[in-house]
């Protein structure tokens, strides 16, 4: 399979706090030295704790943000430093579904205009052709053409999220970065949207970078998964390997915490003790050391390097 996207040692910090001279005094280390490859036609999921850098990674790939260092290759082109002008045509092939549907939809545009916009930018379609696609997509995400003339604030949380999904699908990109695309949807509509994404993938060989904290959904739709912690990718593996044989202690804890939809089921959860370290002062050794029950002395001193423990299964932990 062809690589469509490749991140090599990508890092991003954000300044916080200012000195008297207006210089930033501290930095949030949001994404640290992240590397992974995504192959054409696959669903690559990124999971991990809130604040671990998933959305930032998505925004770096989409080049809404510029990395401090590292390389981002998309369809054979290094895009980490190109200008927004150079980036614009590429966005037809790379769309993003944003985590915050309310904040990412222009409140002064009607739903039909919002969904039409990417077509206006990237195609020469006639208004009729555009409206046809808009109405089709509204139907596909479970809204009706009656909704087309309304404004975003007139919709429920889940409806807004579906507008965001329709918007990303209009220009039929080859890569979709979907940041928590179904988090506000009830299970039945989740199922419809997931089935839709699956069908589109089969039909058009779409590639997804799927950001989610819902591990049951991730298990269902992913081919490969990266687990992030504190801005680092700590484990990457094909889905089955990750779920059957999680190697990193953080992945283990994460998998044990999934709520089970059965009131009689009593589960054994690994409750993580200890504080999540600050992203301003990164720990010197393993980023997970403060909360890891298997922590050894060397973990506090040395950052574990990524190792391929079985084919395709990468982990950064001193146990391996």
């Amino acid at each position: 399979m062809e690589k469509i996207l490749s991140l090599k040692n990508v890092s991003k910090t954000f300044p916080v706090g200012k000195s008297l001279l207006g210089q930033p005094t501290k930095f949030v280390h949001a994404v640290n030295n992240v590397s992974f490859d995504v192959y054409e036609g696959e669903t690559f999921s990124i999971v991990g704790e809130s604040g671990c850098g998933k959305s930032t990674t998505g925004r770096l790939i989409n080049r809404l943000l510029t990395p401090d260092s590292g390389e981002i290759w998309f369809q054979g082109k290094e895009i980490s430093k190109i200008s927004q002008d150079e980036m614009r045509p590429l966005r037809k092939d790379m769309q993003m579904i944003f985590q915050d549907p309310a904040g990412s939809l222009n409140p002064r545009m009607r739903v039909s205009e919002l969904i039409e916009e990417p077509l206006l930018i990237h195609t020469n379609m006639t208004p009729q052709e555009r409206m046809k696609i808009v109405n089709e997509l509204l139907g596909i995400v479970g809204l009706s053409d009656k909704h087309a003339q309304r404004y975003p604030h007139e919709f429920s949380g889940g409806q807004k999220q579906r507008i965001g999904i329709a918007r990303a699908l209009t220009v039929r990109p080859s890569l979709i970065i979907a940041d928590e695309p179904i988090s506000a949807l009830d299970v039945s509509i989740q199922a419809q949207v997931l089935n839709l994404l699956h069908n589109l993938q089969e039909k058009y060989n779409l590639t997804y970078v799927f950001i989610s904290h819902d591990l049951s959904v991730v298990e269902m739709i992913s081919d490969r998964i990266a687990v992030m912690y504190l801005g680092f990718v700590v484990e990457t593996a094909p889905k089955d390997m990750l779920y059957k044989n999680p190697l990193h202690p953080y992945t283990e804890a994460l998998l044990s915490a999934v709520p089970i939809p059965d009131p009689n089921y009593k589960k054994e959860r690994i409750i993580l003790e200890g504080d999540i370290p600050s992203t301003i002062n990164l720990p010197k050794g393993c980023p997970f050391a403060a909360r890891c029950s298997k922590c050894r002395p060397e973990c506090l001193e040395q950052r574990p390097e990524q190792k391929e423990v079985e084919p395709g299964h990468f982990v950064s932990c001193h146990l391996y």
Partner: protein
Amino acid sequence: MSQEVLLKVKDLRTEFFSSKKSSVTAVHNISFDIYKGEILGLVGESGCGKSVTSLSIMQLLKDTPGKVTNGEIVFDGVDLLKASDAEIRDIRGGKMSMIFQEPMSSLNPSMRIDKQMIEGIRLHTKMSKEEARNHAAEMLKKVGIPDPQRVLKNYPHQLSGGMSQRVMIAMAMSCDPKLLIADEPTTALDVTIQAQILDLMKKIQKEEGSSILLITHDLGVVAEMCSRVIVMYAGKIVEEAPVEVLFNNPTHPYTQGLIASVPKLGSGVKVLPSIPGSVPDLASMPQGCRFAPRCKYATEKCRTQEPDLVVVGENQRCRCWLKQEG
């Protein structure tokens, strides 16, 4: 759990007006009670009126074209629809607070987190600025924010989705509410932090005797947290049942479909069962049972006459002709 009612919602109807004469009804004469110290779940398809119900209870429709046009909302002995603005301000954020579904856009974008939290806390307590700040930091710690001092100094856009959500939760819980309305409170959180937040909610329920109205589409969370559950469909309650009954013996065809479409860890399926069709548009509701166009059991009667919500078992109500034949 006592049987003492903390919140009574009776025949609540909320409409959105696009002009003086034309309106759509988002919440259609719903009635339910929340008992002291209970966690009541509210579930239902996207757009069915869960958030509008909670905004109606909180009296937060003022900035929208929405209006409560019928019913009663009695909270802790106060009829909220008749209360003065001052009374409402006193209750809201204090004895009754809400975690909003869209945290990123519910926080004030131009105000630092510390200012927002301190103002909120001081409105309902006698704390000094200093005390309120410490309390805010403590609350942030409790919701699993690793670096409260940094987050306090941030503006909302500098936080991740889950961090904004937790700031929202910390704010809502900071004045020990008697009733906490939590509208999809953990959608942006990973499971470990979700577990921590759910534990925190259970703790205020057990230790402070708080009641919680928990709106969520995550049936795993419902199973774990709630004692009773209300299911809404297209603006109406279609089923109400104790949690075990709802999962083991759902009676309404919509509830049955809902339970069947839950993805389960380890089930190995690629395509999920979903309920075919979509929710009817508010402006063009079907005449009879609102679920009829999607229901595999629908009969002629279903399409013309609407069933009532009737008692079908111990503490169980259901709105379906199948359950009220004869």
